[in-house]
């Protein structure tokens, strides 16, 4: 019973830090243990145990996001080798639904955090800009499963999309002006006024206790 007390202390700490409820934290902890095989940390290889994830074309980017120091708030760049449960929850908290009880300022903050997570997914070299190369890389990955698409078409799609993004951010460009890449502010500008963060959340089921029925 002594162990239970210290565990609930930790849980309360995590509730404060990440904003999940204690029930959700317990469930995620069980999931964490399942993924890590009862170890205290998770490595990249542990994500191989999730068969459904194989279907996802940007699987490697998602797994990478878990170890990205920028998402873990541990540094401006680089990858961690392994993460513990608190780090796991930190990443998961990017996908918490927007609480109705939040005020305008908190909503804006939340939105910015979510969009920043996505920005980091595109910006793989952590230089603060999404260059054409990085953009192409994402498109290629998304289309990677289909053997019929040639690299050329993937490239042209990426180029077209990049041009459009440039026109939104910088406006009309001179013919020899080089667009260096989408910065985070430009990224925010693209999504300004549009309610995109409601799509970036995972809804937790309302868990109820089951009574004994006899």
């Amino acid at each position: 019973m002594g162990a239970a007390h210290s565990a609930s202390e930790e849980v309360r700490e995590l509730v404060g830090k990440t904003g999940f409820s204690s029930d959700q934290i317990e469930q995620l902890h069980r999931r964490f243990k399942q993924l890590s095989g009862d170890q205290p940390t998770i490595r990249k290889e542990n994500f191989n145990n999730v068969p459904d994830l194989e279907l996802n074309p940007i699987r490697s980017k998602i797994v990478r996001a878990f170890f990205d120091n920028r998402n873990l708030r541990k540094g401006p760049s680089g990858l961690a080798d392994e993460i513990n449960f608190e780090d796991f929850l930190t990443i998961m908290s990017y996908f918490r639904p927007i609480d109705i009880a939040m005020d305008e300022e908190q909503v804006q903050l939340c939105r910015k955090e979510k969009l920043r997570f996505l920005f980091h997914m595109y910006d793989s070299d952590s230089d603060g800009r999404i260059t054409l190369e990085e953009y192409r890389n994402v498109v290629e990955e998304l289309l990677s499963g289909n053997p019929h698409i040639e690299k050329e078409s993937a490239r042209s799609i990426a180029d077209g999309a990049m041009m459009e993004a440039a026109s939104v951010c910088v406006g009309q460009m001179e013919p020899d002006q080089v667009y260096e890449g989408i910065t985070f502010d430009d990224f925010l500008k693209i999504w300004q006024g549009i309610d995109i963060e409601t799509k970036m959340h995972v809804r937790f089921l309302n868990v109820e206790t089951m009574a004994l029925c006899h």
Partner: protein
Amino acid sequence: MFLLLPFDSLIVNLLGISLTVLFTLLLVFIIVPAIFGVSFGIRKLYMKTLLKIFAWATLRMERGAKEKNHQLYKPYTNGIIAKDPTSLEEEIKEIRRSGSSKALDNTPEFELSDIFYFCRKGMETIMDDEVTKRFSAEELESWNLLSRTNYNFQYISLRLTVLWGLGVLIRYCFLLPLRIALAFTGISLLVVGTTMVGYLPHGRFKEFLSKHVHLMCYRICVRALTAIITYHDRKNRPRNGGICVANHTSPIDVIILASDGYYAMVGQVHGGLMGVIQRAMVKACPHVWFERSEVKDRHLVAKRLTEHVQDKSKLPILIFPEGTCINNTSVMMFKKGSFEIGATVYPVAIKYDPQFGDAFWNSSKYGMVTYLLRMMTSWAIVCSVWYLPPMTRETDEGAVQFANRVKSAIARQGGLVDLLWDGGLKREKVKDTFKEEQQKLYSKMIVGNHEDRSRS
């Protein structure tokens, strides 16, 4: 030393008397009814008593927990997140619509927001996926006085601990030796009986005797596990020339089904005790045993099964198409081999009640012997067997569709979840063909439209 002598002989006498009494009881109440297929109803009475005790125990725990203000029940979850049932196309269209109020025309291209969908889906699967859930044993909401199922009940009073201790005593010191004795009797009778029947000339008498020897021994084994089985719709029982297909939870499934019907088994030749049993059984009636090398050759397997099935005098084959043990909350993909043969398929659904003992064999966690010991030290194994009406493959139906149809029927009857996933995922990784599906769909969406655009 001399002082011990009178006590010595007393103890020996007592031991001798108790053993004789035990064996007589065994014979009268268990083996004789097994031979004739009658039942005294002792097991049903046992089950009712146990249920009453479990209910009482849980009430005590509730009361105790309330006094001490502890949380007693683990929240009931069948998955922790709400997954949207919308398809890939719908979601991406919605994201784009909400993202770009400008482009409401129906030629969507790749946009920055497309990544949202895949990102979210990825997160959802990391948080909770269907497949991994199926391979851990089902969790109970009330405690059945077995420490192995005590995941969530931390508060246990003194009275309950005493009861649990009593339970341990009964299970390990009384029930376990009894069950082992029965199992031993059953298996040796099987081996001896079938070998003897094997010496008889072929004919009706041999068939008759073989059937009854098999049934009798399986019934003894059923009692050795204290399995309380309820059979439903026995009129649909498999007939000669058919294939009986069932969902697989543990090796005990074979004993449960074979104690109510006469089947030809299919399997790999083993060494050791299993091998002895297999060789004896095949003398009395034609079972289909494959050598290890033959198992890999699918055509050979299919050919032998077809030959067996076409001979109307031969028994119905018993097959478990999932290929591995599942934890009895769902039915996984059926391997299509047995459905290609073209015989009538008799589906059977088996559902275990986990309250008395969890029958799921997690072969990565426990070996066979450990598993059997766990089974024999549980209270009982309670299950229901439903015989479903026979199905045949339609002319324009593929083997895979047929297999899925049978699987859905079994899942529906047994109250199990029907999953498309391969039971082999317990050990291997996802096949590449599955990976391509989603990606093809998405890429079709983008490239197809891009071509339209560039053309116009």
